[in-house]
């Protein structure tokens, strides 16, 4: 069976839940040129939707080029949102609505739209040369290309130019308000309050700036257009009721935000100040940007000269008694590996955030992938274990970051957090936690001179003492050379090296006793099939397993692993309770290898490395074929 090929292929059957009458969730995809402001349009619409109380998930999908040549397919930037009155778990397999601001955006995206879905086009952008440049030989509006969809053509460009006239802005500036005109229209379609967007425009431009006034006018004009025109394609405003969720204060949060705040919260719970040393890299940089604005919380940020220096500076900070943190993505993590080994050897706390992206090498900088599991667990010279924790959603990054700080400081070890480009950029409604609700894990620095050496260990955790420079009587030397177990001095003794290697491994393995046992996300603790995932594939796996159980009555469960290393202590036994195990991940089989190596489990795999998130339907069809219910 080659499930991999199934998942990659086109022509999958339409999801039964995607019929238009089923209005408990809608997927809208905005697409345009990379200069069209599509990401802003999408994030403002998400904000309005969140404030309306809907559940939602977003998927910003943008090119690596900042401004690719206008009108090209590789310059298309898109933003997808799935929102509903039920719990939304993914950004949606298939858009119900595509807003295409130019022909290239249509070219790249029309094949993914649900049959019978709605396509809104800016007809003003469909000049002959634009159509050719996008790769259409004939105008796609005329040759039946779009016959399976309902099409609404509006000359959005002309509308934006017209509405900007009284403000005396340039044609270029007027056209740039296309995104807000479109937002106005879509806000009307889904009955969204535009207050938060108006506040945003006022904040960004001030109340006098003609460009700001033109943008504000465009937003209102788009909304008014919907109200006053009898739109073709049978469009009437749809009201999406709020989802039922736990009481509390909510906000939209991206993975980069909640991860940064989680690090700050973790440092606070440990009673430490933090030094984040980082080097700019996509898609990790937002963490540096966010923490650079939090200096008032005792957070120092350092933009190092390179990835290696960033990791080394974080280690230097930890040596000095602060929490050293470094954040990067695949290629940068590769550069840090030698320094991570130093932190392992000197047993200093260090948090390494890896926001994974497509690889190898430069790969797909702006696209998502889960292919750094190997480098996280095994990617260093020699026997060099560290704990690895994976976040499964934007909001979950907060919890994972706190846990990483706890383990790093309690066990005096580097800890790697695995996030990915999807989690980092996507946003979801988040019940805002309070730091006060978390149990503190305050660090105690060693101060007692009597009998001191730097590798005195806690008999339970095996963590060494943390003695910081400036403490009288505790002067000591550490380094990357092997150390004597009993004194911390340099030692080349064979038996000692064996003992130190064993101790370093035992210290990390022992963490399995300090993390929760593996739970089953949906389903039973035994049965015919367990779908195992980790990281950002939580949403599609969870929804697919839910659907297969509820709608098709299949005996399938979902297990989602947070602690990648060490693995939860009951995981091996748990997996043996299922007749079949399917590992679904966005790489070429890395978790699969890990589980096979640890438990000799004969797992099957659903693998996808297209730079796009896993779809619900891909998981569903893999479940169906494994359980023979096609």
């Amino acid at each position, binding site marked *: 069976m080659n499930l991999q090929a199934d998942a990659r292929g086109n022509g999958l059957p339409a999801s039964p839940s995607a019929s238009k009458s089923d209005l408990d969730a809608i997927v809208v995809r905005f697409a345009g040129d990379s200069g069209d402001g599509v990401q802003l349009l999408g994030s403002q619409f998400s904000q309005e939707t969140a404030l309306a109380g809907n559940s939602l998930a977003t998927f910003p999908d943008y090119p690596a080029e900042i401004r690719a040549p206008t009108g090209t397919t590789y310059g298309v930037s898109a933003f997808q949102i799935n929102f509903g009155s039920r719990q939304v778990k993914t950004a949606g397999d298939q858009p119900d609505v595509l807003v295409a601001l130019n022909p290239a955006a249509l070219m790249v995206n029309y094949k993914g739209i649900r049959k019978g879905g709605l396509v809104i086009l800016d007809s003003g952008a469909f000049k002959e040369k634009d159509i050719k440049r996008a790769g259409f030989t004939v105008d796609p509006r005329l040759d039946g290309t779009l016959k399976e969809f309902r099409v609404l053509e509006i000359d959005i460009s002309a509308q934006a130019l017209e509405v900007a006239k009284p403000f005396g802005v340039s044609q270029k500036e007027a056209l740039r308000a296309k995104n807000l005109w479109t937002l106005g229209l879509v806000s009307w379609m889904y009955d969204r309050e535009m207050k938060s967007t108006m506040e945003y425009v006022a904040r960004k431009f001030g109340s006098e700036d003609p460009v700001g006034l033109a943008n504000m006018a465009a937003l209102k004009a788009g909304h008014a257009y919907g109200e006053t025109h009898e739109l073709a394609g049978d469009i009437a405003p749809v009201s999406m009721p709020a989802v039922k969720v736990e009481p509390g204060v909510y906000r939209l949060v991206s993975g980069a935000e909640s991860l940064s705040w989680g690090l700050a919260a973790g440092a606070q719970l440990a009673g430490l100040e933090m030094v984040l040393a980082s080097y700019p890299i996509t898609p990790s940089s937002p963490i540096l940007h966010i923490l650079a604005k939090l200096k008032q919380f005792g957070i120092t940020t350092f933009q190092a000269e390179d990835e290696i220096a960033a990791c*080394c500076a974080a280690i230097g900070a930890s040596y000095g008694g602060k929490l050293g943190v470094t954040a990067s993505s695949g290629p940068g993590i590769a550069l840090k590996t030698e320094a991570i080994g130093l932190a392992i050897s000197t047993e200093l706390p260090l948090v390494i955030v890896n926001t994974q992206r497509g690889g190898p090498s430069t790969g797909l900088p702006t696209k998502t992938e889960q292919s750094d599991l190997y480098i996280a667990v095994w990617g260093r010279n020699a026997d060099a274990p560290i704990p690895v924790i994976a976040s499964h959603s934007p909001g979950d990054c907060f919890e994972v970051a706190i846990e990483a700080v706890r383990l790093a400081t309690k066990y005096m070890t580097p800890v790697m957090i695995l996030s990915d480009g999807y989690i980092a950029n996507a946003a979801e409604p988040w019940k805002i936690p309070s730091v006060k609700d978390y149990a503190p894990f305050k660090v105690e620095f060693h101060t007692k001179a009597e009998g001191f050496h730097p590798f005195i260990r806690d008999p339970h955790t095996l963590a060494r003492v943390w003695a910081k*420079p400036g403490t009288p009587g505790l002067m000591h030397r550490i380094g990357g050379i092997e150390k004597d177990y009993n004194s911390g001095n340099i030692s080349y003794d064979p038996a000692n090296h064996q003992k130190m290697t064993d101790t370093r491994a035992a210290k990390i393995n022992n963490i399995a006793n300090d993390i929760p046992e593996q739970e089953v996300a949906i389903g039973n603790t035994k049965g015919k099939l367990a779908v195992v995932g980790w990281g950002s594939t939580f949403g599609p796996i969870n929804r697919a397993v839910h659907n297969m159980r509820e709608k098709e009555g299949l005996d399938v469960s979902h297990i989602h692993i947070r602690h990648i290393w060490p693995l939860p202590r009951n995981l091996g036994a748990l997996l043996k309770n299922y007749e079949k195990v399917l590992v679904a991940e966005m790489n070429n089989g890395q978790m699969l290898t890990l589980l096979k190596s640890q438990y000799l489990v004969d797992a099957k795999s659903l693998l996808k490395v297209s730079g796009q998130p896993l779809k619900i339907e891909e998981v569903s069809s893999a479940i169906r074929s494994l359980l023979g219910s096609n």
Partner: protein
Amino acid sequence: MNVTVQPDKLTAKDFASDQEVRWCPGCGDYAILKAMHKSLADMGARPENTVFISGIGCSSRFPYYMATYGFHTIHGRAPAVATGLKLARPELDVWVVTGDGDALSIGGNHLFHALRRNVDLNILLFNNEIYGLTKGQYSPASRVGTKSPSTPMGSVDSPAEACTYALGCGARFIARGIDVQAKELDVLFRRAREHKGASFVEIIQNCIVYNDAVFADFTEKAVAAEMQVHVKHGQPMRYGKDGNKGLRFSPQTFKIEAVVIGQNGVTENDILIHDEKNRVLASLLVALRPPSFPEVLGVIYCDPAATSYEAAVAAQEAQAKAQATAKGGAPDLDKLMRAGNTWSVT
């Protein structure tokens, strides 16, 4: 004797660790280590507030022999580790010990940025123009034609000049000394420590096993007086057994010339007065190398900036704290996360 010794007063011995020193017999590093033990004691440094950070190589074993805090890190990265430490703990006295391979080859980038940023570190580069610990390959500082296991027919690439590099990187304190000249090193260590910002000290160090006597043309006793000029701020740059030689600036060629007082009409007044704050002069002095010129030793350049990197970073943090506190009391993460667009579900 009737001298009262303060209980606090430390001696050179108090700065020596209990570890057996494992450099080759006759290595120049021994002399530097001994000079450092004594200098720190004389300067009144406290072992608990002093940290030595090194990379990889013979020189980088230095921290193990100091009874201070010490961190033997990885190849070339000592300036980066030291920068992180200094950001976390600006009050510590942080020394970086490195060699010509560690600092000028694998770690050239980190040295550049530590100097450019002006992190308050005392960086000592032991230059023996060879890779010692890996058994004698030529280094980026080796002269053209150096025969080594990796260059059996002689090296062909031109060498890196440590002080010239440091100056180009934007260093504001540059000095040069010789391993066995303890008295002079003492002055350099003291000045480096006093300097707020990155201090760069090149120490000419003899590798007795792989590159012995490579500096003999100016370090040998017989030639030392004629081939070394010890520069001091505000004093004429004179040298020679009889003090009759000196450095003169030629406005015609924009070069420095080695001249003899009393010959060709040269008088005492022609000899350049050293001005350690003059960057143009420094750029000329670091370029003078034997055998055409005497080796220039001492504090070649010292022009402190208004502030050092970690002090400027700390000032911004203090400002951010003051602003946040003035706005709404102590910074509160819960408040931060609740700022902006939120909604309540009841």
